């Protein structure tokens, strides 16, 4: 018995040694650091990496549900230049939208995700301290603030009534989140809605800071002068914001910065050019895309607008009727008729950039501001000249106006013709105190009615008791 016990012990020892040999080598392999991602500290370790993280803010600006292009569509499918597109239901239908609607929740989430990335960048850059030079730090701060302001612009116009809805815009806007939270579940994140005036003030403050800090040009003009925030981009967005506020003097001042840029900005001979070559003098700021930005996407402007792609959105007959179809290049070069429907040629490929600020808008902003500033029923000839500058570029006949209101109406029509499908379709009705007229199968939506703005997502209001839902949803 004893003998066999010893044998057993030897066997056990032999076996254990064999197992033990493999043991240590095995354990080392088990837990590995990721090879796919960086930690926040290492992402801000060197100046070069901070530059990459700054670029990353634009990666988030390409958010597929927001400024990658979708938000422009949301403003336009609720306007009258396109036929109600069932792909985007219920948004074009107005009355059937609910607080659980996925598209509006996606836009809301996309906006705050973009804003969150800008806020996080500012926080991490501050923590990185002297890694970044003062000049670069200024530039990045300007870019972050431009991205933040741009995101708030669409957000406040989609989810809140327009600036002029109440005197001094004291009605509810959207929550202002300006600091990246380090405790996402903390009650401090349950922010309430700021007023529309406060949101505009914040955009103004961000853009003025950005204007001061941003460069006029980048070292790679072929791309970054349009694809990244510049002094010109901040000024152009300020011009638009002042126009939306009805602050005409400032709108003119800021539009003039662009118009009087000594040839840096201007119009191309052909209105199509800016939509094919994305970095001409006509484009002030666009969200860039290329073949590397998920070419398989369902969300690109080209995918939705081009009949050669998914072709979800076609152009309304009413829009086409605004133009002289024998002369206007915006019809001849930018509209096509395919299988009994009109389509825009502004976007044909999934790689097309999303145009945000173009030179002609500055002319029309100035024209509208001047026209409004005119006393009595005076027709501002300077305004008329600016509108006709836009029209003549497209070989359309110049217009004349019989009165101040006639001129304003014509400027607004010109904005439709020139800026259609670029994300201001429904905004232009609402900011000018007009409802959305009946079009296609959609009945008229009165100015100030509940359905002309999108619901604050139920996802948010159910978690944040301080967030007041929009009425009617």
């Amino acid at each position, binding site marked *: 018995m004893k003998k066999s016990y010893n*044998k*057993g012990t*030897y*066997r*056990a020892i032999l*076996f254990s040694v*064999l*197992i033990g040999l*493999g043991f240590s080598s095995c*354990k080392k*392999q*088990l*837990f590995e650091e*990721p090879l*796919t*991602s960086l*930690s*926040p500290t*290492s992402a801000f370790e060197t100046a070069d990496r901070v530059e990459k*993280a700054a*670029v*990353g803010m634009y*990666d988030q600006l*390409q958010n597929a549900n927001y400024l990658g292009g979708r938000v422009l569509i949301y403003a336009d499918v609720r306007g009258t230049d396109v*036929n109600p597109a*069932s*792909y985007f239901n219920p948004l074009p*239908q107005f*009355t*059937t939208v609910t607080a659980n609607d996925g598209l509006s929740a996606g836009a809301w989430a996309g906006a*705050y995700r973009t804003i*969150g*990335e800008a*806020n*996080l960048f500012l926080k991490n850059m501050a923590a990185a301290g002297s890694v970044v030079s003062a000049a670069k730090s200024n530039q990045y701060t300007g870019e972050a603030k431009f991205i933040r302001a741009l995101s708030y612009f669409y957000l406040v116009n989609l989810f809140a009534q327009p600036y002029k809805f109440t005197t001094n815009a004291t009605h509810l806007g959207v929550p202002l989140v300006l600091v990246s939270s380090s405790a*996402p*579940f903390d009650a401090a994140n349950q*922010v309430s809605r700021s007023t529309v005036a406060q949101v505009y003030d914040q955009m103004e403050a961000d853009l003025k800071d950005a204007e001061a800090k941003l460069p006029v040009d980048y070292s790679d003009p072929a*791309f*970054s002068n349009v*694809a990244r925030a510049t002094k010109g981009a901040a000024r152009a967005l300020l011009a638009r914001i002042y126009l939306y506020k009805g602050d005409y003097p400032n709108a003119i001042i800021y539009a003039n910065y662009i118009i009087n840029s000594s040839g840096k900005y201007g119009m191309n001979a052909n209105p199509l050019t800016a939509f094919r070559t994305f970095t001409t003098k006509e484009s002030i700021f666009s969200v*860039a895309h*290329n*073949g*590397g930005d998920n*070419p398989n996407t369902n969300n690109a402007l080209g995918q939705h607008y081009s009949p*050669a*792609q998914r*072709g979800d959105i076609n152009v309304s007959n009413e829009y086409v009727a605004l133009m002289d179809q024998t002369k206007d290049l915006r019809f001849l070069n930018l509209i096509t008729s*395919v299988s*009994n429907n009109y389509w825009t040629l502004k976007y*044909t490929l*999934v790689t097309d950039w999303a145009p945000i600020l173009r030179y002609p808008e500055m002319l029309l902003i100035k024209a509208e501001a001047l026209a409004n500033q005119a006393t009595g029923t005076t027709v501002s000839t300077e305004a008329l000249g600016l509108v006709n500058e836009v029209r003549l570029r497209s070989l359309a006949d110049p217009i004349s106006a019989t009165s101040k209101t006639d001129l304003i109406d014509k400027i607004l029509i010109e904005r439709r013709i020139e800026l259609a499908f670029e994300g201001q379709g429904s905004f232009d009705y609402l900011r000018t105190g007009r409802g959305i007229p009946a079009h296609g*199968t*959609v009945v008229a939506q009165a100015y100030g009615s509940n359905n002309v703005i999108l619901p604050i997502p139920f*996802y*948010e209001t*159910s*978690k944040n008791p301080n967030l007041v839902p929009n009425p009617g*949803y």
Partner: protein
Amino acid sequence: MKKLLQSLFILLFVATSAIAQNRTITGTVTSKEDGLPIPGVSVKVKGTNIGVSTGANGKFSLSVPSNATALEFSSLGFGTQTITIGSENVVNASLSGNSKDLSEIVVVGYGVKSVKDMTGSSARVSGNKLAEQPIESFDKALSGKAAGVQISSSGGTLADGVAIRIRGVNSISTSSLPLVVIDGIPANTRENLNTFNSGNGTRFDPLALLNPNDIESIDVLKDAGAAVLYGSRAANGVILVTTKKGKQGTNKITFDSKVNFASASKVPNLLNGDQFNMINNEKVSNRWGGPVVAKDSDIDGDGQPDRVDWMKQIFRTGTTYDNTASITGGTDKSSYYGSARYADQNGILYGNKLKSGSARINLDVRPKDWIKGGVELSFTKILNYGVLTDGFLAGASIAGYNAAPTVAVFNPNGVKGYNLTATTPIGYLGLGNNVTTVSGTSLIGNRVNNPIATIDLQRNQNTAENLVGNVYIEIQPISGLRITSKYGIDYQKNFEDQYSSPYIAGLGQSYGGLVQDNLLDRNQWVWQNYATYDKTIANVHRISATVGSEFQRTSEKQIYAGANNFSDPFFQYIIDGTYTGSAPGSSDILLWSGGTLFSNGLESYFGRLGYSYNNKYFVEGALRADAFSGFGESNRWGKFPSVSAGWILSEESFFKKNKYVDYAKIRGSYGLVGNSRGVGSYAARTLYSGGAYASLNGFSSSQLGNADLKWETSKKFNIGADVNFFGNRLNLVTDYFNTNISGLILAAPVLYTVGVPGSSITTNIGSMKNSGFEITLNITNIVKKDFSWTSSINYTHVKNEVLSLVASNNNAEILSSSTVAHVGKPLGTYKLVQWAGVQQSTGYPMWYAADGKTLKIWNQVSQKYEFENGTATTLGAADQVYLDGKTGTPTFYGGFDNSFTYKDFDLNFSIVYQGGNYLYNTTFSGLLVNSFQNNDARILDRWTPTNTNASIPKLYSMDNTANQASTRFLEKGDFLRMRTISLGYRLNKRWVDRIGVASLRVSAQVYNAFVITGYSGIDPEVNSNRNNSNLATGFDNRAIPQPRTYSLGLTATF
């Protein structure tokens, strides 16, 4: 063999020399299933210790005392049979591998146990119950076979995955799938090998890579007591699969051949051509007063208006040939099992096909008494010809269901002979004379593909390969002590290959032809080392202990490549120089390459200590500690202790006299079990990942981590009883269970305004409870010489309640497709507006406000909601109500099996049932749309001035408000399904001998013979969200119907 016989005779001599010898009984023990002799069967004189084992030829010879009344035959894996002996000296027995028996072993963690010793709750399904079914993966066959196990299918596409739920849904946002362990080695946890279309396109369940014919048995471990040593990953239960091993003494070659004919059990009832024209014209005339838009066309040029039943186009009878050859056998020193299989499976969907080949070899050797070792090695390769179905416009169940029945499939003048649009928009189903625009408004909701052309001209394939290799060595240095080291790899490879044709609308058309390929390469190794000790002291005190360690590492990488804009449609693969890679009309090169990789590790230590007294009282304690790399650095370790106890009442002296009860046991367990499945490899970390902006390189935040992330822990309590009645003819197993899950790993929703990536952070927040009971009854109704009838019925009832969610979110409910996780309610409770029918005077759809009384009517003309009095209102989130108690998850389910044998015939019925759940019929709502497409035939009962008491509102072109989510489409999901009816005949021994084979069996089976249900959709066993949602589990969204399959099988053993 000679040695074996010698030792048997010695054994016989030793065993029999001690007692008085009166007479010798001889006989042969054979298997009831295949008629072959069974070696190693214990033959005992009832009530004594006198006994022998059968030899290699199944024969035995035993001296029995004169007062002996019966012989007991028993063997592991087979039942026990008692045969009364009279004066005859020859007694033959035939044992069944299926019967429930107390000496039967149960596979548990790191070893086996006999049923008698079990203190936990488990269930066993024998492999031959699975292999006969015409299924691609074994998980599909578990339906109704074991109490507590519920399977929901996402449809009849080949190799599509199923959702397996053991005792309810045990998680909110991580996986609720059980741990699958194959031959002791935890299997890979990927649920779907395909990645294109976010994994929602054509799906491939990796469990299909295990040949069902190779499965010996499946054990389902349901509570902490059974799962013991798998504690860290047992929150959703554990499924242990054991493959076949060679048996001593029986050298066999078996050929198994099956042919199946599968067709759709039910297809949607859609409008025919004339009805289509009438309905679609009515939609338009109701809104605009005309014009006629739906018109007949003659696209195929046969001189007749085209009429197509698209259901007959996309569905077909699929024929499958499935052949397996296996060899098995062994001696006292070694045993082997080997198999090879080739199957050519054709699905019910046009173009859907699997070609599978697999081979396996399982070897065990015992060179010395104290050491044994073995390998389990298998390789499988499957080529899947997938077909897109739900969720994709090109999918067969979208294009096929929506297609106008008045346009032909083919057009002799069309592209490649198909009816496809040749002008922009190119590549859709041509609509002939139909008009699709009325006064500038398009009548097209979604454009419709030609489903046949789409399948014929495009490619959606994947080739999956799986290599599994395990080796083990076990030594027994001293009696009772066993030390085992086992190492296993599970290597999966999947090559996805998609081709989109330039002739078909979609990416192929946009990009001048597009090929996309993805290579997934996943490896997992597991190394286990453990020692078990088992000793009985003084005949009554039995101690058993296990200690061990386990290391597991999983790594995966994927590489993706694509090519587009081909020089000619002839080129359909990535071949140098045949494509430009730019979008037609652009010089911008599209980036069609990418990839990802990750790895994770699990380090575990475990121990178990059991004590039993006199086979009456059992107690066991176990502890497992695991570290998973996905959790926060300081929280990686989780400790999972459990205790369990059992008491065999029937062993007590006061019980012995009982006439009716033969065996009674009470058992209970309580333990902590964990869950880490579905937790990403780097879930706890805050990460910056690649974030290029067009041509600029960059990185942006991709995940906000939670360094405190730790194991999700369930407290599982189980109490159960096993009782055998009436001479063991009735076996009852009952269990009550209560699972409290705390620290739920939740992709906890963060306010959008915080702006974190994905709007969620993986956090341990929230708790949930599942409780219920299970009953299993196994009944031997009749056992006669030539006739037997056995039944098995099981029933499970589960109740769920969400106890807490994210407190800082105001405990806000988590919403997923009209279902919620809401504190105090069962997980996945529906939240919907209540449908109020059709307004008789106008035909407008109506709903109730939240009060359930106030009507809200959709005025089609003004396009606004109105109260009955005409004032405007809205219908929104505030009108939705919680439909308490209504969820998509069944509250009861089970199965009912009956087996009859008559002489050489056997007949089986297998029924599965489930209910208490509600299904949301999205297929129906999607087939009622008012755009220009085909509809469900029930639309004929629409409101018209002459049919005012209608179920469908007045048709109104392009207005789909009536079809929004509401209780209108919610239906009860109860059903009873005749899962299988099978009839087998085993060729009589006389004939078999004459032919020279060992056995020959022919069988015929009907799978999914019929379903009894009130559900109006295609099939009530449906879960279109598969494993993607633990909330919205009852959605029927154009799932492909389950097949009804007729099979013929032939099994020959030599």
